[in-house]
Structure formats: structure tokens, C-alpha cells
């Protein structure tokens, strides 16, 4: 059990309410450089998730338990007396009241800013009635040097070391402002042996504990030889200190300064940063309070500028009187730098495992090939334009992206009987979800289904590049016994031409700079159709061939780019993308129809097993 005048010591363990990962780690880092035996956090209370949380204890990792509710945490850790409440202003009241209702919890730190005054007063009154302490609302908290740190108090570890907060000095400090706590620790460290305890009560009008509450604890704490305080314009809290001084209740030297003396030159309507910082009468001004404190015997500087000097003077006096001694500095364990911080400071480097050259989601807006998404939309780039950015890393001219969109429309569907659609339908009928059914369909795309686009592009390109005449090409393929990919149609023929092919060719003739490969393919077609009317250039072949012409018509594509399109199977990608539209349609169609499981009719299967073999020996 800690003495009443100490809210925290080297054994204090707290609950942290709210999943504040950084603050939790900072508390543990502080513990480590203070050489605590146990972490200052017993458990985390996270209404969103129970389980464990992994933290560093120096360079090792340890686990902190995490509970959903305060009572669960209390049941497991009955010795815990402190809760650091990071709940938002919307829910901090309920969490604080619940914590105060736990007999074991003696101190609650309320970090949230913007707690309504009425709620703050109820929390305060409840705590006082129970003989408990609230620090806050609207505060970073405070710390006991060498023992316990509340949340983010005192900032970085460098600062903690700089202000010697890893071991006790002789000064008790209290202020309203949490923002000034770091500076105060610095001032105290530079002008005395350092801080024993420093608390920021928060800048609200009705703080849960006031300046005098903490001053009286410091007065009772034998480790503390002198007290430093920063008050603030507005409110009458400092007059309680004046009264206590007058009544002789504060015997230790008190160096105090009330900030906000400039309020006299400011228009009355200027609200300082803190909700409580506004003088409603002369009595509440900083000047009046400073004078009253000075009259009551406190050490009050002329301005903040000699606040540190006054602390120094008092410290030197106490030292001369033998009441305090300079501290022998203990060795301070160092904490490894956090990896992310080291990266930012350029202290470490590591090779990356993955490379991405097409998009970037790290900034405020995602980039497609270097172009922000909003710009993509603004420029009306369309799906074709987006494919240009993400597949080719190029801004395609609009005629090219429109061609791509035309292709996507053409390949979007080809009825329910083709492999992909059939597979997707069967999967959907089997009750599989949309994505599984889609994957089932897509997995059929390959050398025999949908692959003709790629194959046609590859074969025609190869033939032309190697200088084969259309005749030679046709003969070569015949010799190998291979059908020329992209040639031939089940129904369509010279007399009954494919409308889709006509559209594609018409478009290419109008917009492409060159249609060399197409012209070559049409020469091939003349030869093949002479043999048989349906050996026409089909839609797959037309797409594959024209795509290469498209690339040759655009500036910026090299021969190597064209080769890689053929090699890497870009055109299969185009088919898969377009056909996905149709597949999803088929899958949804089956789901809407509530189709039952599909079973292929037995009479449609020729069962041709080997002859029965006798199993008898």
C-alpha cells in the first residue's frame, strides 16, 4: 500500500483504458530505464477486443493481457490501484465512473479533452466522496521520477534522459498545462537536483484535482524538499494556495508563477488555449494572483523569465542549509531506437523484399502509374485509360483506350455453354460464393479456351518478323499439322462475315497509324478462305493482332514492349478481365434463380471402364 501522499511509486501497476499502443510502449520504456522490476501496466482495457498485446521490454517482447471491461481486468488484477483513461471525450465519463466504483482503484487519470463541465464535476465529487484522486481531464498526466510515468508525459526518451526523470531529485511540481510540463521538467532539472514528481492537472475549468491537492501531497512527502508550481489566469484555484500559505499549512519553499499576465493587453474575448483560462473578474487575473501569492510568502518571480532562477536560488539555499544534496547520477540503461524512428532519422537501412512500379497508396491519394486517382477521374480516362496506366504504365491516347474498352465489351460474354461460363455456373449452383464461382470460371482460361488471342498475336508476329510470306506461313503451319490460331470460325464465313471483326477492323483503319500485322493476317486469310470458306480471321485473332498494331501505332512502345506483351500474356489478361463481367453475370443469374445443384446427366456420359477383373485368387 502506497502512502497517501504518493499516488504512484516504483511498484505501482496501472490499467490503461484504450488501446493506445504508443503510450503503452512509452510507459514500458520509461519503466525499463528506471530499472523497475515489473512493468507499470498490469493490463489493457480495450472495449473493442480482448486478448493479449505484445510490447517491448527493452529489446525483448512481453505480453500484456487485454480485457474488454474494467470489472474483468479488476477481477484478474486486484492489486491495481491506478487507471490511465484514454477514452475519448464521449465515453470517458462512463469509464471513469465505472473505475471509481471499483474499490481497489484509487486514482484515475482522465486524458480526454472536451469533457463537459457538469460531467467533470460529477466525476470529481464522486472521487472526493470516496477519498480517491482524479488527475485531469484534459491532461497528459504526469510522472514520478524513476518510478512511474503516465502515458505520454515528458515526451521522448531523449527528453526524459535530458531532464533526468529516470531518478528522483527533490522538487515536487504541479501545473495546469500539460504542454508546459516538459519545459518545467527541463527548467527544474537545470536549476536543481531535479523532479521527484510532476503533475499537470489539466487546463479545464473544473479539474478533478486542483493545484493545492497536489501541493499538499508534496508538503507531506519527505522525499520532496521544495515545491514548484505554475498557475494560470482564470478561476480561483490559486487562492486556496494563498489560504494554505497563510494558515501555515505549506512549510516547504514554494516557487510559483501564475501565467496569463498578458491578459490585460488582450481584448477580453480572447480565449487562451485552456478552457479555464479566462479571467471573469480582477481577482482571477494573473497579476492579482501573483501578488496575493507573493504577499502570502510564496517565492514569486517578476516574470516567467526568472522562474528558473528562483528555483535555482531556493535549491542553493536548501543545499547550503544541508537540507538537500546533489544527486549521484545512476547509470541509465539505454533503449534501442524504434525501427520506424531509425528509418525516419536515416540511421538504418534494409533491403526491400518487394518492388512495385505501378501504383502507390502511401500518400494522401492513391497514384495509378504516377497519376492521382482524382486526376484519372477528372480526365475521364475510363477503364481503357486505367489499363494503360496500370498494365503498360503509360497514358494511352484516347483512341487506344477506347479500342481496349471495345475489346472488353466484345469479350465480355459468349453465352452459358463455353467452358468458363459453364464452370462458373456449376460452381454457383453448388452453392459457392461469387468469388469462388468466378475463380472456377477464370481457371479454365488457358491454351484451349480464350488463349487464341495470345496465340494468334504470337504466331502472326513470329511469322511476319521471321520474314515468312503468307504462303510460307500457311504451308509451315500445315506442315506442322497445327491450325493457325485466330483463323477459322464455327459458323461465320466469307459469305457470312463476323460483324465484330468488321467493327474492329473499321476502327483500326480509322484510328491506327499502322495496321501492318492486320494486313499480313488478311493476306493469310485470303489463302485460307480460298481453301475453305469458314477459315476466316476470327474475333480472337483479330483482337490479338490489332493489339500489336495498336502498340506500334502509339508513341513510346518499343519493340521490346511489344514482345513482352506477347510473352507475358497481357492479352489473356484482357480476355480474363472482359470475360469476368459475363461470368459474374452468369453467377448472379444462377443465384437469383436459386438454381439447384448441377449434376451432369449419366446418359450423357459414355462409361467405358476396363473389363471387370476377378478379385478372387
Amino acid at each position, binding site marked *: 500500500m502506497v502512502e497517501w501522499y504518493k499516488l504512484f511509486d516504483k511498484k505501482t501497476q496501472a490499467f490503461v483504458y484504450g488501446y493506445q499502443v504508443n503510450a503503452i510502449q512509452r510507459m514500458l520504456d520509461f519503466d525499463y530505464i528506471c530499472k523497475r522490476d515489473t512493468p507499470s501496466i498490469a493490463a489493457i482495457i480495450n472495449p473493442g477486443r480482448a486478448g493479449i498485446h505484445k510490447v517491448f521490454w527493452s529489446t525483448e517482447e512481453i505480453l500484456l493481457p487485454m480485457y474488454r471491461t474494467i470489472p474483468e481486468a479488476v477481477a484478474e488484477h486486484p492489486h491495481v490501484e491506478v487507471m490511465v483513461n484514454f477514452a475519448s471525450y464521449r465515453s470517458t465519463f462512463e469509464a471513469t465512473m465505472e473505475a471509481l466504483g471499483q474499490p481497489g482503484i484509487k486514482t484515475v487519470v482522465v486524458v480526454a479533452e472536451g469533457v*463537459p463541465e457538469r460531467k467533470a464535476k460529477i466525476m470529481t465529487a464522486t472521487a472526493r466522496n470516496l477519498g480517491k484522486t482524479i488527475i485531469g481531464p484534459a491532461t497528459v498526466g504526469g510522472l514520478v521520477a524513476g518510478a512511474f510515468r503516465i502515458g505520454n508525459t515528458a515526451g*521522448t526518451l531523449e527528453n526524459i534522459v535530458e531532464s533526468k526523470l529516470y531518478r528522483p531529485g527533490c522538487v515536487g511540481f504541479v501545473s495546469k498545462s500539460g504542454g508546459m510540463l516538459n*519545459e518545467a521538467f*527541463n527548467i527544474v532539472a*537545470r536549476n536543481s537536483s531535479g523532479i521527484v514528481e510532476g503533475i499537470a492537472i489539466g487546463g479545464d475549468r473544473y479539474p478533478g484535482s486542483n493545484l493545492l491537492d497536489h501541493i499538499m501531497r508534496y508538503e507531506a512527502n519527505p522525499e520532496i524538499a521544495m515545491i514548484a508550481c505554475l498557475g494560470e489566469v482564470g478561476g480561483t484555484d490559486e487562492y486556496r494556495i494563498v489560504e494554505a500559505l497563510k494558515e501555515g499549512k505549506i512549510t516547504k519553499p514554494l516557487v510559483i508563477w501564475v*501565467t496569463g*499576465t*498578458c491578459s490585460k493587453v488582450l481584448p*477580453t474575448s480572447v480565449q487562451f488555449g485552456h478552457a479555464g483560462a479566462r479571467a471573469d473578474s480582477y481577482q482571477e487575473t494573473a497579476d492579482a494572483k501573483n501578488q496575493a501569492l507573493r504577499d502570502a510568502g510564496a517565492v514569486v518571480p517578476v516574470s516567467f523569465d526568472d522562474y528558473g532562477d528562483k528555483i535555482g536560488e531556493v535549491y542553493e539555499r536548501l543545499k547550503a542549509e544541508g537540507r538537500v544534496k546533489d544527486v549521484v547520477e545512476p547509470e541509465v540503461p539505454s533503449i534501442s531506437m524504434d525501427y520506424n524512428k531509425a528509418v525516419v532519422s536515416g540511421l538504418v537501412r534494409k533491403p526491400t523484399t518487394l518492388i512495385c512500379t505501378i501504383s502507390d497508396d502511401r500518400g494522401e491519394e492513391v497514384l495509378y502509374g504516377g497519376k492521382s486517382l482524382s486526376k484519372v477521374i477528372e480526365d475521364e480516362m475510363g477503364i481503357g485509360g486505367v489499363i494503360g496506366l496500370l498494365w503498360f504504365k503509360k497514358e494511352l491516347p484516347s483512341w487506344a483506350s477506347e479500342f481496349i474498352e471495345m475489346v472488353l465489351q466484345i469479350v465480355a460474354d459468349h453465352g452459358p455453354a463455353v467452358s468458363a461460363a459453364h464452370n462458373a455456373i456449376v460452381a454457383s449452383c453448388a452453392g459457392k460464393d461469387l468469388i469462388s464461382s468466378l475463380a472456377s470460371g477464370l481457371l479454365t482460361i488457358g491454351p484451349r479456351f480464350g488463349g487464341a488471342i495470345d496465340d494468334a498475336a504470337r504466331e502472326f508476329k513470329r511469322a511476319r518478323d521471321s520474314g515468312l510470306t503468307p504462303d510460307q506461313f500457311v504451308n509451315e503451319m500445315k506442315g506442322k499439322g497445327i491450325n493457325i490460331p485466330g483463323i477459322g470460325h464455327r459458323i461465320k464465313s466469307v459469305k457470312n462475315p463476323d460483324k465484330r471483326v468488321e467493327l474492329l477492323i473499321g476502327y483500326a483503319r480509322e484510328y491506327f497509324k499502322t495496321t501492318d500485322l492486320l494486313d499480313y493476317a488478311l493476306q493469310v486469310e485470303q489463302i485460307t478462305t480460298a481453301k475453305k470458306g469458314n477459315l476466316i480471321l476470327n474475333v480472337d485473332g483479330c483482337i490479338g493482332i490489332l493489339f500489336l498494331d495498336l502498340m506500334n501505332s502509339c508513341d513510346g512502345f518499343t519493340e521490346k514492349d511489344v514482345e513482352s506483351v506477347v510473352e507475358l500474356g497481357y492479352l489473356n489478361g484482357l480476355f480474363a478481365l472482359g470475360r469476368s463481367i459475363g461470368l459474374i453475370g452468369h453467377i448472379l443469374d444462377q443465384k437469383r434463380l436459386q438454381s439447384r445443384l448441377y449434376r451432369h446427366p449419366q446418359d450423357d456420359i459414355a462409361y467405358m471402364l476396363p473389363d471387370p477383373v476377378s478379385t478372387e485368387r
Partner: protein
Amino acid sequence: MAQRGIREHDAKVMLAKYLPDYIDNFSYEGELALVTPDTDLEALAAKYPWLKKKKLVVKPDQLFGKRGAHGLVLLDATWDQAKDYLLEKMNKEVLVGTTTGPLTHFLIEPFIPHAQDDELYAAIKSGYQGDSIYFSMAGGISVEENWNQVTKIEVNIMDDIDDIDLRSKLPSSLGDRLDQVADFVRGLYRLYADLGFAYLEINPFIFEDGRIVPLDVVAKLDDTEQFWQRETWKDLESPEPFGRALSEEERYIKDLDSRTGASLKLTILNPRGRVWTMVAGGGASVIYTDTICDLGFGGEVANYGEYSGDPSTEDTYEYTKTILDLMTREKDPQGRPKVLLIGGGIANFTDVARTFKGIVMALEDYRDRLKEADVKIYVRRGGPNYEEGLKIMRRLGERLGVPIEVFGPETHMTRIVPMALDEGM
């Protein structure tokens, strides 16, 4: 995040709307009309027919008191008289206390003739332990002179107002109106507590035909209640205090503040002042300005403000440019130098170097004007990456040809103030 005043019009609308929920047999019509510079008076009269039927009171509604004493209340007027009065006063500059500003908002209500002796006073004020209810039979303009006649009833925060015997605490001289007043005060308190008020004063209220009518109302809300009062407050506006029309630059910073997650504040106090501050953090910014005043240079303080909450480079760049622009618009008429204090305590987690980058960019933009206005710059800051930040500043000084003195946490936070005032001025 603090207490803020609301218009009398809005306060009375809330009383009219919600008070009947709290008091049995209570009615207050709330015949209220708010006039702004954009109001079409004829349309207003069409909307509120009582304007043409009743005698009227017209008074400014801009969060300042003692309107009668300033001769700004028109009593017992016809609609035509009210219109003439509004045409005359609207947008007119007036002096109230020490503040001058234009009249922009007026409240019109029915005029209720009554004797001054019949004016009652009730107020509720928030305090540390709870709230205090004040009541006086001697209401009206002289309530403060007769403060000894005011009854104060403490309501502890944990008390239920229904458990307090208001009847026995209110003056017995209320006679047969005692019950009615006790009910009224009780209802008023419950409305105050439920609807997020921090201050509510009705001075005076009177009895008209046995009914209580509030004549003058002053109210402040605890604006941290916004989340819980989003329904009950949805029609409220948050007026700027009287005379505090924002300058263009102040409005620009206010806009910037509302658009970023950081906190950026600027109040221009005296654009001719020679001491300009750009301080990180609310606590530190007050202390820098304090110290300038404490050292006797209050008259030279040009601005008050702060930047905090880990502002981006962009934010500090815009903020700094605004201040530099104001500060270098004209040279001191007597040819004296000006100083800019770029101050701050030791930051918790704000990257000092990063915030300084924006400041440096702005200083570079204003290089020539800074020289012309004879500006000297003093810097003091600590916190994450401060060494790098200070180095950037020192290098800038060499490059810019503007004197820049740079200090870190080893130097007391405000030491650059006496330095600047001694050497720089």
C-alpha cells in the same frame, strides 16, 4: 472548448421551446424576431404578424450588456418606429465599454409595460462544487447595487434539485407568488442542467396577467456539450463577441485551423507593434506574451497566437507567411527595428525540424521585406529532432542576411524575450 455566449434571441427561443417541458402550467410564447443586416423587414412583418399589432421593444443582440445605459434600447415603439430605429442603427459603429464595433443584430419583442418595482432577478452560475442559484426581488438594472438583497441557493453537483426546498429558501415576501416562482426556478435549473448551459441570467422577469415573462436573458453554454446537445442546439449560431469582427488574416488562419488537424490561432492586437510572436503550443504562447508585458513592452505586442498539434510543413508555411506579411507591410515610422520571436517549449512528439521547414520557406519568401522592415529574429525550441531544426535556422540566418539568433533547451524558454527587447529594439 470553453464556455461561450449565445444570442439572447436564441436563449429565449430555447426557453420558449423547452421550459414548458420542465414546469407544469407554464407558457411563454416566445414572440421573438431577430434582425440582421440581411433581413427583409417587410418579409419579417409578414412572418410575424404581431410585429404590426403590438407595441415593441428593439435592442441589440450581440453579447454585450448594459444596453439601456448605452441608450441602445427602443421601448414602447410601433412597427414604423421600430423600422426607423433599425434603419438608423443597423451597421452603425458604437462604443460599448472600451470596445467599438458595428451593430449587426437586433432582437424585437412585444413591449410589456410594468413598474420597475415588479422586476425580479434569477440567475444560475456554474461553480466548482455545483451551481449557484441567485434570486432577487430587486431585479432590473440596479440588481448589482442591491446585491445584499440577493438570495443565493447552492445546488451541489450531486444534489437533485427536486430534493431542495426552494420555497423555504426564496424570500417569503414573494407571498402568494412564492410557489409559482419556486416552480419557475426549479424548472429553469433543470433546463440549465439538461441543455448544457454554463450560465443563465434572467434580469428581469416580470408577471404579466399572472404569468412569468422573461424580459432580458443572458446565457452561456458549455460548448463541450455539443455532442450530447446536437439536437437541442442545432439551430444555435456561435456569434463572435461584440467588436471582434475578424480581420482578413485572422479569418484566413481560422479557416486554415478548421481545415487541418493542427491548431493554428491568430489574434492581431496592434499591427503597428514591433514585437511579433510565433510560438508553438498554447501554454508557451501565453508565457511569451506575458513576459513581453512583464518586461514593460505590452504596448509593442503586435499579435497573439499559437501553432500546435503537430502541424504539417504546409501549415507552418502558411501561418508564418501570414505573420510575416502583416509584420513587414510597413516600416516602423520612427525607423526602429522590429523583432520576431519564434519560440516554444520542449515539444512532446512534434518533429521540430519538420515544422521549422515551413517557417524557413516562408522566411525565404519574405527575405527582402524582412530586411526592409529591419526585422531581427530570435528562435528558441526543444523537442524531437530539435538539433536538426535549430541547425536549419542557423544556416538560414547565414543565407538570408537577416539576423537570426537560435537557442535550444539549454537556454531558458523565455530568455530570448529580454534578449530581443534589449538588443533587438
